[in-house]
């Protein structure tokens, strides 16, 4: 089979269609706009719905309404749009409405640089909701990942009934690359996360096609989905919504490890920076340094056990991110006595392999 040439945004859209996405609503914003264009090409001929909202708040609102009606939904934006989504994200968490949200990150703060990449929204995606309950954040390294992780995102959203973020980056979303065509031909790739059997105590698998009435509410509620002030009921519901994700962190965990026995240093990164790190790793090993590379693809919930296991026995951990230090906070709290060195760059440029080599050797 030959290869195809496409960017991360198109890969996300194609994966969404394959995952059975029924409904997309978006609002144009660089560098996420082409996802909207692709969905507009794909959905209407299939008899499904693609809409352009009057703003980002409306776009995600349309999605939540459609999802309340049982549709598989996705929206896509960049940092400024995530800011406007925030209140609706909290709603999706609290009312347990499945949605895939793609954040093609660009350089912030605020409007920042529309055409420059960054990974500056990582903790914002995790904590940008009122109440602070967990969400799922997946981060692609390349175009193939953008496809595979989007498939998983739909699966996770339906299973756990929560927002699932694809933390893409302009440097993945708008960079084209050659990919084996077979990647796009089916769901085989994704067998690793098939988990239909496990039943989950979620309320309201919404469908308006039956006579059974569907209720979804942003207010604190119990299993009947009516507003309540009963502390016991509220507490139980909050705990359930938290634990449904935290207790599944192992199953949700996706990471790639390149390690040799006896390596003394662990290089930790994610997203597009993992590509420079792979090159840096080759260079470091040629020079005789024992370095392992850990590429994290499920940033949240933090796969604490898996991460600790990779850190075990290392003398030094180096964390590299396209921001001023966000995920390093998670690594630091898990590293125990192992010293953690951080390198971040936030100027719109890719972190180079040479600078990663330099930081590891520091």
């Amino acid at each position, binding site marked *: 089979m030959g290869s195809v040439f496409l960017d991360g945004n198109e890969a996300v859209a194609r994966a969404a269609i394959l995952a059975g996405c029924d409904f997309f609503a978006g609002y144009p914003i660089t560098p996420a706009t082409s996802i909207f264009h692709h969905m507009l090409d794909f959905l209407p001929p299939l008899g499904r719905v693609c809409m352009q909202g009057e703003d980002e*708040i409306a776009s995600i609102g349309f999605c939540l309404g459609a999802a309340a009606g049982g549709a598989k939904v996705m929206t896509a934006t960049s940092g400024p749009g995530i800011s406007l989504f925030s209140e609706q994200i909290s709603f999706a968490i609290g009312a347990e409405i499945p949605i895939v949200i793609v954040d093609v990150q660009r350089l912030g703060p605020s409007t920042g640089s529309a055409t420059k990449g960054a990974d500056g929204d990582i903790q914002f995606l995790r904590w940008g909701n009122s109440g602070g309950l967990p969400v799922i954040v997946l981060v692609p390294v*390349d175009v193939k990942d953008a496809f595979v992780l989007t498939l998983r995102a739909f699966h996770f959203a339906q299973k756990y009934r929560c927002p699932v973020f694809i933390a893409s980056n302009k440097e993945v979303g708008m960079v084209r690359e050659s990919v084996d065509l077979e990647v796009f031909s089916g769901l085989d790739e994704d067998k690793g996360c098939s988990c239909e059997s496990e039943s989950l105590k979620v309320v309201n698998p919404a469908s308006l096609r039956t006579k059974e009435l569907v209720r979804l*509410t942003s207010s604190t509620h119990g299993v009947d989905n009516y507003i309540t002030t009963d502390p016991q009921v509220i507490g139980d519901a909050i705990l359930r919504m938290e634990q449904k994700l935290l207790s599944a962190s192992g199953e949700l965990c996706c990471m790639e490890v390149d390690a040799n026995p006896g390596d003394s240093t662990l290089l930790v990164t994610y997203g597009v920076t993992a590509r420079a790190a792979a090159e840096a790793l080759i260079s470091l090993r040629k020079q005789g340094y024992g370095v392992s590379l850990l590429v994290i693809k499920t940033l949240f919930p933090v796969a604490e056990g898996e991460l600790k296991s990779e850190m075990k026995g290392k003398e030094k951990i180096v964390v590299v991110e396209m921001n001023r230090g966000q995920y390093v906070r998670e690594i630091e709290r898990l590293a125990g006595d192992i010293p953690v060195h951080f390198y971040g760059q936030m100027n719109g440029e890719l972190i180079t392999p040479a600078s990663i080599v330099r930081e590891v050797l520091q």
Partner: protein
Amino acid sequence: MNTVLNSNRPLFFCPGCSHERVVHGVDRAIQSLGLQGHQVAIVSDIGCSGLFDTFFNTHALHGLHGRALTYATGLKMVHPEITVLVIMGDGGLGIGGAHVLASCRRNLDITLLVLNNFNYGMTGGQCSTTTPASDQTASNFLNKLEVPIDICRVAAAAGALFTEKVMATDGALAETISRSIEFPGFALLDIWGICPGRHLKKNPITAGQLEKKMRTSGGGHSVSIGQDRDLPAEEMEVSVREEYGEHYRRLAAVTKEPQPLIEIESKFSPLTHERTEVVILGSAGQFINTIGEILSIGAMSSGRWVSQKNDYPITVLRGHSISEVVVDIKPITYTGINKPAVIICVGQEGVDRRRKMFAEADADTVIIAFPDLTLPVTGARVIMCDGGNLKLKKGQRGIAALAVLVQTGLILDCDMLNNAIKTRYSGMMADVSLEVVATILTPSLPPEIS
């Protein structure tokens, strides 16, 4: 018909609140239309009107302040068979104003009931977008600084085809709600009521006085723009416009299938045996992105892995356009440029943007450029492209430069380039590009090396 009121959830409003009347009006309207609970979805937001969904045995979606119309829109698009009723107060009307206007323009078959009691009741009687400037509110003097909006006028101006004002105490309330539900498009009912809890004490008014005020307000009791009204031709065209959902489905049904991914087969012997980086520097309008893609497809047709990263400003036909292509024998790791093997210069803006790259380049780098460009000082080898005596248009320079790249023996041969051109272009564009390549690659015209 039976009531759709939820007997387990008795009404809970302040004594004398108009909202109670509206709950019963909605119940009677649903009954009179012969609808059962599972055929109706009530979408509500925040504030006292946000309690509505709990009082009914219907589908219910209770969300954020002012955003109820957004949920209703998504829900109606995937369930056109369901009657979707949105309840909001004058608070939701203000905070969600953009969604109200968009809903008017869109004409999706949703009914919006605005429970207008001229203040924010639940939070303690602050002014809203409909509070008269003369009223006393918990917002002290602030409401005196702004004029209230008449949502029926605003909605009509935004394209709503059904806008009506009605008193919560009106004996015909249920019948009016029924008509708004039956309207096959977006319908807005501005339901005026009294808030005894937070607004009435400082602003004493009777239902009769309020009704009189409503009748004398702009547009009067009913400002319905129905299909039967005597309207000028252009407005009539608006008044009979199609319901959004039906219209969407009609237009979607005739959309074309999207282009499938183009499979690039590996059928040529590769010229590259290690990571090779190419930077194409040009100006907007020179198809730099496409030239990069043709180069990439050419390399892929020899079994190589490729990445392409572009850089251009937001303007069209002005400014720089740069494409960075990496070719490798394994999947591309770093997509940036470490040390370019080739710098293709076809436009001055791109060259000026990457001046530093020229200073850093040594004899390992080949520069392909056109004679009229001003190049920075460089240690790289420079090959000038004279266009094979062709009078090249600015937009053809990129293809000409790729032909010169073929002459260098790096990355592409003539077959790969021609194959890539035919893959990416069709018709005239393909013919012209192939002709440019053929002319430049005529053996009588060797490149001039400076």
